């Protein structure tokens, strides 16, 4: 059966794409953010994932208001990025892992999640930039992906509790997939930020810290919040943290924190990074 090697949760602020394209990683503004990633590169070198199952939000590249699923699972052989109209560079196409996609889709529907399956899907900065942060080397991406989108554009959003359950179901599916693949689970977006209106620039460091701690030690704590609570506490776009909750829930049992970073600001956003490993994975590696 496939193994979940761990989880990486990271922000995906579009401006990161510009900074990478212009080589600004060492600029004083960007350095505290990019300095968070070399320990992730070392860890990835050790755990060597073949596939990444990525919970993220589409911001209008693949889905628009004409058809907007609450949860959608990509089941394509490849996923192109494209011009998002935001003036950021277009990144490389990512290869898919349709066998795992369909196994996850079957598992989710069996668990009564009425998801949308997509045999064609574009992936926006919320998937491509995290890949660029994790694997900055160039060439083909070293992992295949299964993209899973969570509606974050149009309310009503799914609840944190529902996103947690989604993650649990996806985790069960991954671990029952007949494959020797090593699977990384990713959650992208956040942390606190608000882009729109008079409250733009809203940041809530103490709530972000609460989330980052709960994601390690007590993920169920976050399921007690509503989407509206998250808007109030983390900003109108801070609801992206629900993708982190789903990723965490995909991991079985207790986890240990491998690495984290937190920096205010990247553009309008408090940027977070969290790397988790299952305690059993860590123990079996030590044995």
């Amino acid at each position: 059966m496939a193994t979940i090697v761990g989880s990486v949760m990271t922000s995906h602020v579009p401006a990161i794409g510009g900074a990478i394209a212009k080589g600004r990683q060492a600029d004083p503004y960007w350095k505290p953010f990019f300095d968070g990633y070399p320990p992730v590169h070392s860890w990835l070198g050790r755990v060597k994932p073949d596939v990444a199952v990525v919970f993220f939000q589409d911001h209008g590249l693949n889905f628009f208001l004409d058809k907007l699923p609450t949860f959608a699972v990509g089941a394509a052989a490849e996923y192109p990025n494209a011009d998002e109209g935001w003036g950021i560079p277009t990144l490389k196409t990512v290869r898919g892992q349709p066998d795992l996609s369909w196994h996850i889709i079957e598992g989710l529907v069996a668990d009564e999640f009425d998801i949308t399956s997509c045999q064609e899907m574009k992936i926006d900065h919320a998937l491509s930039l995290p890949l660029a942060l994790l694997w900055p080397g160039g060439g083909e991406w070293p992992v295949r992906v299964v993209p899973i989108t969570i509606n974050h554009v149009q309310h009503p959003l799914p609840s944190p509790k529902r996103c947690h359950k989604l993650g649990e179901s996806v985790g069960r599916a991954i671990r029952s997939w007949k494959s020797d693949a090593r699977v990384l689970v990713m959650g992208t977006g956040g942390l606190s930020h608000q882009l729109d209106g008079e409250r733009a620039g809203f940041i809530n460091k103490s709530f972000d810290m609460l989330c980052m701690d709960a994601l390690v030690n007590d993920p169920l704590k976050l399921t007690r919040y509503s989407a509206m609570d998250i808007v109030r506490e983390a900003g109108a776009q801070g609801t992206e943290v629900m993708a982190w909750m789903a990723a965490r829930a995909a991991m079985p049992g207790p986890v240990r924190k491998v690495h984290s970073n937190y920096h205010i600001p990247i553009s309008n956003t408090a940027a977070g990074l969290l790397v988790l490993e299952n305690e059993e994975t860590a123990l079996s590696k030590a044995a």
Partner: protein
Amino acid sequence: MNTYNEAFRDIPGTTVFDATQSRLGYHLNMFCMSLMKDENRKAFRADESGYLRHFPMTDAQRQAVIDRDYNRMISLGGNIYFLAKIGATDGFSFQNLASKMTGVPEEDYRAMMIAGGRPPKGNRSKTDPAR
């Protein structure tokens, strides 16, 4: 039946993009989506009013676009993720749009973010005593 939208009215300076806003702003947001193509960005820049006539928006929505009045566009159903494509077509960042929406110069907005952002105190609820 606006109960969902009204539930968010307690959060200051925030318009949650729900069914009420999405229905109002469908064609405004559709116009924004058209700006994902370079040829459309060029056509819009060449003749803004003429380009906007291709979309069945209200005159108030068209005027708000021409005025680059982002708060007005939001009140008329615009979603920030889509509206940002207008800003990018103008060559501006999200921070520039945020400075416009919050009514402060971009340098001041940027300085606020570097200093830790807009704090939760007084900004979580309209009933917060710190306001």
